[in-house]
């Protein structure tokens, strides 16, 4: 049977979930451990939707029109998989996801390594490259990006926006919050750029503590480079 039955769902690791916690995704509905194997959980779903199809080369590819296969949302995802058909390959993806979470491997490489030619858009749907020193704050366009799950990425920016708003800074993005607005704000308010960076560092550290991410490391490196090349004055 061709690969059928994996229903794609949006979403990522729940906020605050650590790599270990995410292994709960491998527990069955009764909470019993059902370790991922080539067969996978025996829970075929009659409402399953085809999302993979086998190409002429015999490799599995997503059915056109589906945007994301989020391996991190395995507990939702796995319920709709026709395991006898695709169990082995999909289980490998799930294990790959864990490998990424624990070891930091790039999920795109994992997926490609399995022969799934999932495009970069899909990969971006899973892992976001995060500019730790935002460009609107004067951060460089080219910087080492921290890899963050989409859901956490969104949450981080919400928290940063709230902290900046509370301190009297402009919006982030959109009308009134564009790069121009921020440049104008910094020009008219001496010392505010340093204050914004200090808030950014504080929010980032608190976020890392709460969510087990390591964004601060990238931010500190990027800020150090900025100070070295003079794009930000030393504090």
């Amino acid at each position, binding site marked *: 049977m061709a690969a059928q039955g994996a229903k794609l769902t949006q979403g990522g690791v729940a906020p605050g979930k650590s790599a270990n916690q995410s292994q709960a995704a491998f527990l069955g509905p009764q909470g019993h451990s059902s370790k991922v194997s080539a067969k996978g959980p025996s829970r075929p779903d009659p409402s399953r939707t085809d999302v993979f199809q086998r190409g002429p080369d015999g490799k599995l590819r997503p059915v056109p029109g589906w945007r994301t296969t989020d391996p991190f949302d395995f507990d939702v995802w796995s319920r709709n998989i026709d395991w006898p058909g695709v169990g082995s390959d999909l289980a490998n993806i799930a294990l790959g996801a864990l490998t990424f979470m624990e070891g930091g491997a790039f999920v795109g490489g994992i997926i490609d390594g399995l022969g799934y030619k999932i495009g970069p858009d899909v990969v971006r749907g899973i892992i976001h490259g995060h500019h730790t020193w935002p*460009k609107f704050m004067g951060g460089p366009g080219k910087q080492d990006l921290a890899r963050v799950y989409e859901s956490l990425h969104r949450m981080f920016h919400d928290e940063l926006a709230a902290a900046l708003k509370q301190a009297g800074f402009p919006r982030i993005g959109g*009308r009134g919050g564009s790069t*121009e607005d921020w440049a104008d704000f910094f*020009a008219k308010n001496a010392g505010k750029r340093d204050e914004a960076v200090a808030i950014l560092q504080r929010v980032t550290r608190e976020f890392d503590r709460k969510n087990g991410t390591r964004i601060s490391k990238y931010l500190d490196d990027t800020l150090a480079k900025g100070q070295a090349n003079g794009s930000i*004055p030393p504090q």
Partner: protein
Amino acid sequence: MNPSDRSARRWFWYASQTADCVPLDSNAYASTTFDGEVIPFPDWACKAPDGGVHMNAELLRIDVSVAAPPNSRDEINWTCQYSVRLIAHSWLDQIRDLVDEKRIGIGAIYFNGDAIDGWSTLHERQPPSLLATEGHAKVCPLCGDSYTVLHGREYFSDPTVIGRPFILNRNGLFVREDIALSRNLRTPRGVFEPWVVEYEPHPA
């Protein structure tokens, strides 16, 4: 037009979206130190007592010298220092008849000493501020430059805006909605899709 008409109190707000700003030519200007950096300090700039730098709001026309011409992609741009508004004639010509030159100056952009064809600066003297329900404003005591941090819903509260066909302030360009619709004004490149802002008198 009747000031009580609803259409006299609504504008399309064209706010700059591009981050690809145009640097001023530092060789053409005096300099000053701001936040530990040396920046150009043109004669059309003002430095507030708290150290903030901005365009002198009392001026009408502002000419600028730039270190590089604006990109050809965007029709509305800004200078990286002081956020002087730069407009391509391809779009300015569509609204030029709305520009009240007693309030708004049309200036030149110089690159290597030559005026750049097809581009102008726009600057309104003492423009009305765009306010916001959760924002806060700051006014320079020297030149009257007003700066608003926008959060919440934006609006104008200065009654002099009623009926005006075109307003220009640091937040962007504002074209009266009925005029923009009647002439099917297209959105210039480099700005957000327009957003309607209205006049709302301050509560008594």
